């Protein structure tokens, strides 16, 4: 007896066959029809024409109406051209440009927003600044009561990105004033301190007037209204509709790319703004991926899943990636300056001769070799002369004998004269981040040669930042970029900025108070050359007192596939990424 399974199988086969036969269709049966025909016959020797009726077997042809469909060759659906960037970050912090202080956030907001002025793509030098939302450079005039007025005329037809229920609308002076007032509000901006003493007015729809209680040189004023930090212009209607908190993850600006979506811990997707006033972008969008592990980013780039990645500021990494087929590595500014600060309140660093001895014990070139040129380059003053006005060049420092070229015999002699013939011991903490840890480890080895025993404890990066602001370290290595000399000097060397005890505690780890007057005089100097001279004098003083020893700057390192063309030369970018604009192209 066949099993159920067998019976089912048999039935299925029969059914299928029946269906197939039915589908084939039967041939029509032939039918007999009567037709009238005309024939010629021979009758009694004569050919005659006769009409006869005959039965004929006829197969009816079934005419099948065939529908012939002519289709045009379908155009291939093009995949949107999305540039995929792997960034060294765990997750999104803020897309509100006035809170975008971290490296990962700066790159994103740079693509979404504009400023009244802008740093040229790929060139962050002050001399290369140009108008952005403004039609032209601003006019400046002084009032009778000593205030300074800058007047901007806005471009017309600049459109804010559409967002949710809010349609795209034209940016006017109302948005600019709103945005700058937001930047100046400590509740709504991390950069409020930059806008103290400023009044913002919308004269008409396309004219903005900014009045400064304290006049500033263009070197100090333009960055405040540029496409950087508090200078980014937000669209007021969108901020009001969304609220400040929502705006942090749903930004609305006027830039070449618009916010599309955010996937937590994974990516932010931007889409091209077809109405961008400089022209529609040549790529369809950007995927900004959060990938904190450099191995992952490398693998993603080499596997073709990423187009651009944030690399490692290390010449060994650069060399390794440059030999890979189809990969280009870019090393560019701005350079974050690494400086060794001495806490002058801690024995024996309260003795200037001891500090100078330590400076002579250290070799800049040894520190430089940790990262390699061109990833790093030596600096001879707190302000890096390569990127900012007011820094001292190597030649200037050497001419003043303030370069502190390594001389360990001199260092030992100076320590002995200061009462430390056998050296001394100090304990410090360092961040686990490569940039910091390598410097401290190398410093430990260098200072050991003159008898200084440095114990180095490694902590995580956030912990280091917290603890050095509690005045834990006698010797502090700090790596930072600041947008101009005034910010560098104010935050690291003005007495108000002294850690813990200053009027406005910041990063004056040296507890230095000797150049306050010079810093303040330079800040209010409106003559550019005179201003630069004041900054240089201030730094010369810090070197003479050896409160800090400038080492080098570390540049940005990015790798990309051959198919990526940023659309500009890469010299320096304040947003710490290569700069993706409407001119960026991508081929795969």
């Amino acid at each position, binding site marked *: 007896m066949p099993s159920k399974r067998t019976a089912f199988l048999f039935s299925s086969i029969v059914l299928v066959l029946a269906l197939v036969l039915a589908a084939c269709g039967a041939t029509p049966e032939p039918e007999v029809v009567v037709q009238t025909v005309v024939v010629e016959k021979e009758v009694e020797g004569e050919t005659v024409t006769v009409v006869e009726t005959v039965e004929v077997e006829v197969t009816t042809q079934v005419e099948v109406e065939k529908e012939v469909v002519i289709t045009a060759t379908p155009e291939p659906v093009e995949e949107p051209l999305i540039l995929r960037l792997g960034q060294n970050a765990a997750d999104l912090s803020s897309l509100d440009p006035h809170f975008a*202080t971290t490296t990962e956030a700066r790159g994103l907001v740079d693509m979404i927003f504009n400023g009244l002025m802008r740093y040229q793509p790929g060139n962050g030098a002050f001399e290369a600044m140009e108008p952005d939302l403004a039609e032209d450079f601003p006019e400046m005039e002084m009032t009778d009561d000593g205030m300074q007025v800058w007047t901007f005329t806005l471009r017309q037809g600049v459109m804010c990105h559409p967002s949710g229920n809010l349609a795209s609308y034209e940016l006017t002076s109302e948005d600019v004033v709103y945005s700058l007032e937001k930047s100046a509000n400590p509740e709504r901006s991390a950069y409020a301190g930059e806008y103290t003493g400023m009044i913002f007015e919308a004269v008409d729809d396309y004219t903005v007037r900014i009045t400064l209680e304290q006049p500033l040189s263009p070197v100090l004023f333009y960055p405040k209204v540029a496409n950087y930090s508090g200078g980014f212009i937000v669209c007021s209607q969108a901020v009001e509709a969304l609220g400040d908190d929502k705006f942090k993850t749903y930004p609305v600006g006027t830039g070449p790319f618009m916010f599309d979506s955010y996937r937590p811990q994974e990516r932010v997707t931007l889409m091209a703004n077809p109405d961008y006033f400089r022209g529609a972008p040549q790529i369809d969008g950007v995927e900004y991926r959060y990938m904190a592990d450099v191995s992952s980013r490398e693998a993603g780039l080499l596997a073709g899943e990423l187009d651009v990645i944030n690399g490692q500021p290390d010449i060994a990494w650069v060399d390794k990636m440059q030999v890979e087929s189809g990969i280009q590595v870019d090393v560019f500014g701005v350079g974050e300056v690494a400086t060794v600060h001495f806490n002058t309140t801690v024995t024996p660093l309260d003795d200037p001769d001891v500090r100078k001895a330590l400076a002579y014990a250290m070799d800049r070139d040894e520190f430089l070799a940790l990262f390699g040129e061109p990833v790093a380059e030596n600096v001879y003053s707190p302000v890096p002369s390569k990127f900012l006005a007011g820094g001292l060049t190597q030649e200037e420092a050497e001419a003043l004998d303030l370069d502190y070229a390594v001389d360990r015999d001199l260092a030992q002699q100076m320590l002995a004269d200061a009462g430390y013939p056998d050296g001394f011991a100090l304990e410090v903490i360092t961040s686990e981040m490569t940039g910091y840890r390598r410097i401290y480890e190398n410093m430990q080895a260098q200072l050991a040669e003159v008898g200084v025993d440095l114990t180095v404890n490694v902590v995580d990066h956030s912990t280091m930042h917290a603890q050095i602001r509690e005045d834990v370290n006698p010797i502090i290595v700090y790596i930072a970029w600041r947008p101009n000399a005034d910010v560098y000097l104010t935050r690291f060397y003005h007495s108000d900025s002294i850690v813990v005890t200053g009027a406005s505690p*910041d990063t004056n780890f040296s507890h230095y108070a000797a150049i306050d007057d010079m810093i303040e005089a330079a800040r209010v100097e409106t003559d550019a050359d005179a201003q630069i001279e004041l900054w240089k004098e201030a730094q010369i003083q810090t070197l003479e007192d050896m409160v800090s020893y400038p080492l080098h700057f570390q540049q940005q390192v990015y790798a990309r596939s051959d198919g990526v063309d940023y659309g500009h030369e890469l010299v320096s970018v304040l947003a710490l990424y290569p700069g993706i604009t409407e001119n960026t192209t991508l081929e795969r």
Partner: protein
Amino acid sequence: MLRYIIRRLLLAIPILLAVFTLVFLVVRVIPGDPATSALGDYASKEAVEALRERMGLNEPLHIQYLQFLGNLLRGDFGVSLINGQPINEQVAYALPYTIQLTLASVFLGILLGVPLGVITAMNRNNAIDYLGRIISLVGLSVPAFYFGILLMLLLAVKINVFPAVGGGDLREDPIGSLKFLVLPTLTLGLIMTTSVTRLARSAMLNVLSEDYVRTARAKGLAERAVVVRHALRSALLPIVSITGFWAASLIGDSVLTEYIFSRPGLGKMLVGAILQRDYTALQSVMVIYAAFVVIINLLTDLTYGFLDPRISN
């Protein structure tokens, strides 16, 4: 059985409370805070202080504790201190990726580990057994993150078979996202395989020497029947235990694996929360992990009882 389950679930409450309290205190002892992390070192001290105030970090510690605990009991994990996003939404997004990876890894570990253990036990002291034992020893010695990077370089970069990074889109394209699961699953699953193999081998060897197995052979049963129908069930008991242990362990190991492969799971969320000092995200993820461990342990005990009626009685 029901009373047992209820009792175990009730016991979980003080465990979870203890975990939450410990994490709450530890993260606040570590130097650094969310405000500094959110604003970076460029921000002025005033800006940092203003943000700390808005984040509620200046509230007394016991107020912060009670506020979060109260929200937790209502199923509300709060918002990220860094980007203001609701933690519930972030967890809902990340959790499926972690569950997917953990389940796949456990499945792979058992699917490969048990047969390999049985095979090595059946071929005791010959080449197959030696090879199996060496491989499992190597597997136990290799750190998961290192193994993961090797797999990534070989199968994603050198031979472009699988994606190197990412998790795919579980919601929009669940089938397509499976290819993103392969390398992370191999990373975690193969390491579990080595442990299961060793345990399965050991368990089988013990059982194969039992009297009832000898009796089964004496009855004339085929060796396959002896192993599968008689020996394996007894040998499964310790394997169930180790599976539960590994499932809980793999949830922790998934942290590094998700980080390396850039999978948007709870592990990556946890690492990000630690680096950014995002207290609410960190506390929430740790409570979820603790809940997972409690549930897995309970399921393990119940499975054990099912397999061995003597235990459930």
